[in-house]
């Protein structure tokens, strides 16, 4: 053990910024937001309201690796372009 500790140059309590600091939070999802491009008018409302920064401003693409499925985007979309669909696998 002592060898291991001595091999560590320094111990820091600093965290580094990174996406997915809680892992692939997309795995938390029960419902998945699915966008119908034909209904989307690019108003950016879902983009501004996603608490997890999972919707791209350019192209309104949802990042399913991290989207937690909270449903705020679907709830606020004025054209009802986003539907929450139950994930079939857990």
């Amino acid at each position, binding site marked *: 053990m002592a060898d291991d500790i001595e091999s560590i140059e320094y111990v820091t*309590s*600093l*965290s*580094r*910024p*990174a*996406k*997915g*600091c*809680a*892992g*692939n*939070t997309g795995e*938390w999802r029960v419902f998945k937001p699915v966008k119908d491009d034909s209904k989307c008018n690019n*108003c*950016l*409302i879902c*983009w*501004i*309201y*996603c*608490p*997890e*920064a*999972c919707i791209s*401003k*350019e192209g309104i693409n949802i*990042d399913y*690796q*991290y989207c*937690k*499925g*909270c*449903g*705020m985007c*679907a*709830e*606020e979309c004025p054209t009802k372009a986003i539907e*929450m669909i139950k994930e079939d696998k857990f």
Partner: protein
Amino acid sequence: MVTLKSLPEEELFLAGSTACHGCPSSLALRIAFKALGSNVLLIVVASCTSVLQGSYPFSAINVPLLNMAFATGGASASGAVAGYKALKKRGEIEEEPTVLVWAGDGGTYDIGIQSLSGAAERETNFIYFCYNNEMYSNTGTQRSGATPLGAWTTTTPAGKPQHRKDIAQIMIAHGIPYVATVSLAYPLDFFQKMQKAKSIVGTKYIELLAPCPPGWKFPSSKTIEVSRLAVQSGMWLLYEHENGETRFTAATKKIIEGKVRKRPVKEYLDMQGRFKPVLEKPEGKEAEELLERKVTESIKRLKGWVPEYI
């Protein structure tokens, strides 16, 4: 004119955090960073935000961040501001960063008030941001000085018998240059107030009503709708106070000017499970009427600060 399209695309709050579904604090951080840019020192005092920023060795916050003790928001900012001033004097930094304290209502209304008050009195140049979820969410939803009358928490199981205090008014009484209230349902109003706070030298106090899905007992998809109804019912009033004058903003302004009808407080209460215990009792009606009266009182008190409405 500020539009959604004109807001910066860059995200300084990174996806995949440890926040709950529909968390108002993570969304507020996202919007605040858009307004303030990346030259920010974020000081987080013990709260849900200590947790939702991620777990070691990673962080969802892409600016320098200090995690500080519960009571120390104002004091930590004072130290940081003094430190940056010294670094600038020595020529080690070109521009002093915006010092932003991020604290919950417990960390502001209750344990942090003396430290905040001291920093304000010393005219410390920083932004104090209180995200007010009206309870101690991080430790399991206990009552705070911000919990409204009638609300269930684990320490007020039958509904809180007292109403919340109004800390934004306490900050106005400090004579600081900028005090504003914000809501997630009005993101452009929020963004502009943050930008204004950044441009003003001195102590700035901004408070967000932060509807907490698990604590307030509503579905995670409704954070914005609950935020909106809080404003539309008058339970949360949007304004900014500058140079001794208060200006109502966004939907609150429209309600005060009589352009939009205020919605009944009852509609707001009914959206949330935390008011169920009190509303189900015979005294429920009384609590609702009392809250309605509190709204009228708050508007009246604020109007005292609004010269054109006197």
